[in-house]
């Protein structure tokens, strides 16, 4: 069969969602940010809520997320996305509000805003991209950086004694009564992308049902910051990040999942 006979509109099975704009992504080759953006937009498309959704972009590599996500969006200052989302949601309780935040943003400078938004049970969705590093500013240590991991501000590896321990924000947030759905996923393989998308769908559904804060952490690569080829960075992530940040649901329907 000729390829021309296959490439026909009626045979289309996968195409970039129109909820992603046509702008070329500003991310490094192979960076998980792009995939994460796309599946968030696919969920919004599938739920038919584009016209009722307002997104909050953080400061970090995804500072320009609003250039790529085709919904009403606002850029927050570093770490404050959950507070910004709170302001929006309190004004538009009937609309869908989500933040998209890196680990420096969510787990360092914005820890207070994140914990308190969760603790109030703000009915918003947080997409949390944990790449264990400050990507945007050139690969400095983040609270999530693993023990011994080399970054530009921990050039000899993270020393727990002087630099503190890697912070599992998602586990912490799952403990709070204000969170309803909490999950940790990744987007490095087709199977994981599909699972992550299901989790994001569950998070938005939980928002729709007014159940409180929902959060999906996506353990992701920062091949530039980690100084690796994209494919190698994904392999390194599987080997080193996943044992410390295990994938799966942590909380479903307000109840902690036990087998974590």
């Amino acid at each position, binding site marked *: 069969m000729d390829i021309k006979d296959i490439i026909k509109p009626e045979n289309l099975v996968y195409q970039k969602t129109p909820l992603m704009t046509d702008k070329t992504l500003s991310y490094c080759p192979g960076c998980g940010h792009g995939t994460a953006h796309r599946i968030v937009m696919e969920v919004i498309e599938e739920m038919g809520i584009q016209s009722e959704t307002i997104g909050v972009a953080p400061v970090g590599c995804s500072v320009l997320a609003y250039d790529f996500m*085709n919904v009403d969006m606002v850029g927050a200052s570093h770490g404050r996305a959950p507070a910004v989302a709170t302001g929006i949601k309190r004004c538009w309780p009937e609309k869908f509000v989500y933040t998209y935040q890196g680990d420096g943003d969510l787990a360092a400078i914005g820890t207070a*805003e994140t914990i308190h938004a969760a603790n109030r049970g703000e009915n918003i969705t947080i997409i949390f991209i944990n790449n264990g590093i400050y990507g945007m500013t050139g690969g400095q240590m983040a609270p999530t950086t693993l023990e011994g991991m080399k970054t530009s501000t921990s050039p000899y590896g993270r020393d727990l004694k002087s630099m503190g321990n890697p912070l599992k924000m998602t586990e912490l947030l799952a403990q709070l009564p204000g969170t309803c759905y909490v999950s940790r996923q990744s987007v490095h393989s087709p199977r994981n992308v599909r699972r992550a998308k299901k989790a994001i769908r569950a998070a938005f559904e939980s928002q729709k049902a007014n159940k409180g804060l929902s959060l999906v952490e996506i353990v992701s690569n920062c091949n530039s910051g980690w100084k690796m080829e994209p494919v190698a960075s994904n392999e390194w992530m599987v080997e080193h990040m996943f044992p410390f940040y295990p994938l799966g649901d942590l909380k479903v329907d307000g109840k902690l999942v036990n087998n974590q």
Partner: protein
Amino acid sequence: MKELRLMKGNEAVAEGAIRAGADGYFGYPITPQSEVMEYLMAQQPEKRTGMVVLQAESEVAAINMVYGAASTGKRVMTSSSSPGISLMQEGISYLAGAELPCLLLNVARGGPGLGTIQPSQADYFQSVKGGGHGDYQLIVLAPSSVQEMFDFAFLGFDLAFKYRNPVLMLSDGLIGQMMEKVELCEQLPRVTHFDRSWTLTGKPDGQERNIVTSLDLDASRQEIHNQHLQEKYRQCKENEVRFELLNTDDAEYLFVAYGSSARICQKAIQLGREEGIKIGLLRPITLWPFPAKPLSELAPRMKGILSVEQSAGQMVEDVRLSAGCGVHIEHYGRMGGMIPTPEQVLENLKKLLITK
């Protein structure tokens, strides 16, 4: 029939906000302004008008809640006192950069640092000369009575939306805490129409989505944005200067004072005139834009001008810039939460401008 009430300044501004049709308040407790949120919570504006009131986890969170809420096109506000306002500066700069309207209230106290809880006017520079980073201006209103605390909630929201810019009410612990008679006006309806040219309401089908941001990584476009802001500020300077004159017709000496200091100066004028010293008062109501022109017109007629502030002398710089050379200009003030008496003000006018 007039609706009169005896109220604290902090309560009056809260009542004013409700009646001005505010949609949201986000704040964090700090003396001497905590009554603003306390009054709002007690009033249950969610039931009265549908207004949302939320106690944030910090001033940083509060100003960012205001930022998010303002991006929806609703009328939102926060209040704090000096240290809390310092903490908000990054967010205020973002609000100005993204051109979001909102009402901010500083019931100022003495500094620097944790300072004191007593009234002060030492946040003038912070209020009118930026405060946060970048080239931006706040419209700054200075209430000098409890009535104005009420009235300026209305004026503040009007100006904020007219210019799509944050408006700051720079009050102080004296005006915030004192009780006076207030004439209340009727409840305005909350706004239900949102201008899709800039507000976030969710992208309507078939229309472009909106982006609210202060970021543009392209320097040439960022410069154009800055030029646009400067043009807006120029128009604001042209149209929004507000001030009050008292006894200036025959005055030989002039006080320039705002807020609680203006109240003290009124009494000092009376005392001075009893001794035959003809003193008048120029009270800036907008600290930015500063009433430079009226001051420059009055100045040549004066033997001397005394800028009276509860600070080491901040507004006096603008007084000097506006009045020009050739006039004798001095500053008198007390600091750290101390309030000068009318007698001290008069005495210093004599000492600094007459006997010298």
